[in-house]
């Protein structure tokens, strides 16, 4: 009896199924190599040279590890890395806690629950450029809504503090904006985790007279952990590379208090035109992010296998 679907190779004479499969995926592979692998290799190559993009015809000199040594012994770059660490740590902590709490609340069925979910998700759908611009207005000491809300609760005069102009407050200003924008994203991932827990597990726990707190600690949290870790991974990597929103809000100021690593990188590459130096810096950041991604994927697989 003849099979209803004969292999494609039977119809295309002279080509095996494997060849046809390769022909189908070849364009994607070539595109990925061209836009991912080639720039990476080129950046690695440039990081060992004195190349400047504004002087493409200048003689190219191999400088070896000079740029790497300069970056890894520069106290100013070290400070930028600390500013990045501060930003990444607090945004991830706040977004995870708030995102999970919101997901936990939204997961309970109540009237208008769909409407509230949509409302909470709005910030995530906005462009970082738009968010950066309108938070600049919200943070205005004279007319900004944020200062008025703070003054309403604290009793301080609205114009007595500047969120974006104060050395102490500006790192927290960018953390607040990023948390406002990306907490819904963490919430969405946690909500998927909460909804994937079967009801019969809770029913069994009820039969065993487990308290609500016990159910949360022994069922909800462990079963949501892979999802929470996924959210932490995504946000950690994204925030380590954060550029657009912070650049619009503070441009790294006042002074260099909010100058994250990516802003320093952009300044070195497109203001000082030190292409070789900035390539070395980009490679350092890439290796750190790539390493972190490896750890998280490993941890995620372990949790999934449990």
């Amino acid at each position, binding site marked *: 009896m003849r099979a209803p679907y004969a292999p494609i190779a039977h119809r295309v004479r002279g080509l095996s199924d494997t060849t046809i499969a390769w022909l189908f995926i070849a364009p994607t592979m070539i595109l990925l190599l061209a836009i991912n692998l080639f720039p990476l290799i080129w950046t690695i190559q440039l990081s060992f040279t004195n190349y400047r993009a504004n002087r493409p015809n200048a003689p190219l000199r191999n400088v070896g590890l000079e740029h*790497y040594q300069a970056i890894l012994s520069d106290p100013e770059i*070290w400070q930028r890395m600390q500013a990045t660490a501060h930003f990444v740590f607090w945004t991830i902590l706040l977004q995870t806690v708030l995102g999970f709490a919101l997901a936990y609340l939204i997961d309970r069925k109540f009237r208008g629950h769909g409407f509230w979910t949509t409302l909470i998700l709005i910030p995530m759908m906005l462009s970082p450029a738009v968010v950066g611009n309108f938070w600049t207005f919200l943070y205005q000491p004279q007319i900004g809504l944020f200062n008025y809300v703070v003054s309403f609760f604290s009793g301080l005069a609205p114009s007595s503090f500047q969120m974006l102009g104060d050395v102490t407050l500006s790192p927290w200003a960018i953390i607040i904006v990023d948390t406002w924008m990306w907490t819904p994203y963490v919430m969405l991932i946690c909500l998927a985790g909460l909804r994937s827990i079967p009801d019969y597990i809770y029913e069994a726990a009820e039969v065993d007279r487990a308290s609500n707190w016990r159910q949360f600690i022994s069922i909800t949290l462990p079963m949501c952990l892979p999802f929470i870790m996924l959210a932490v991974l995504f946000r950690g990597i994204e925030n380590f590379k954060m550029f657009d929103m912070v650049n619009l809000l503070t441009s790294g100021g006042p002074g260099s208090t909010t100058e994250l690593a990516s802003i320093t990188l952009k300044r070195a590459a497109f203001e000082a035109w030190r292409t070789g130096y900035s390539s070395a810096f980009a490679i350092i950041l890439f290796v*750190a992010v790539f390493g972190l991604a490896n750890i998280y994927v490993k941890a995620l697989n372990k949790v999934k296998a449990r």
Partner: protein
Amino acid sequence: MNLHASHSRQSDGASRSRWPKPLRRGPMETLATVLIAAGVLMLLQPFSLTLYGYSFVTTLIGVVMFTFVTKFPE
């Protein structure tokens, strides 16, 4: 029956593997993970410029090691 046969063959193969025990995937992966984590912490810590200086090398060794050891047998 076949299932049992293939299972016993697999376990025999695993126990007779000539791959050195300390070089198996599990411990090597853990070592690479520790190196990456240490490297990233060294890069972001605010205490010592010397540690910051060695952060990239540590992370790079960890990443390269991780890439290779994930292909090692379990």
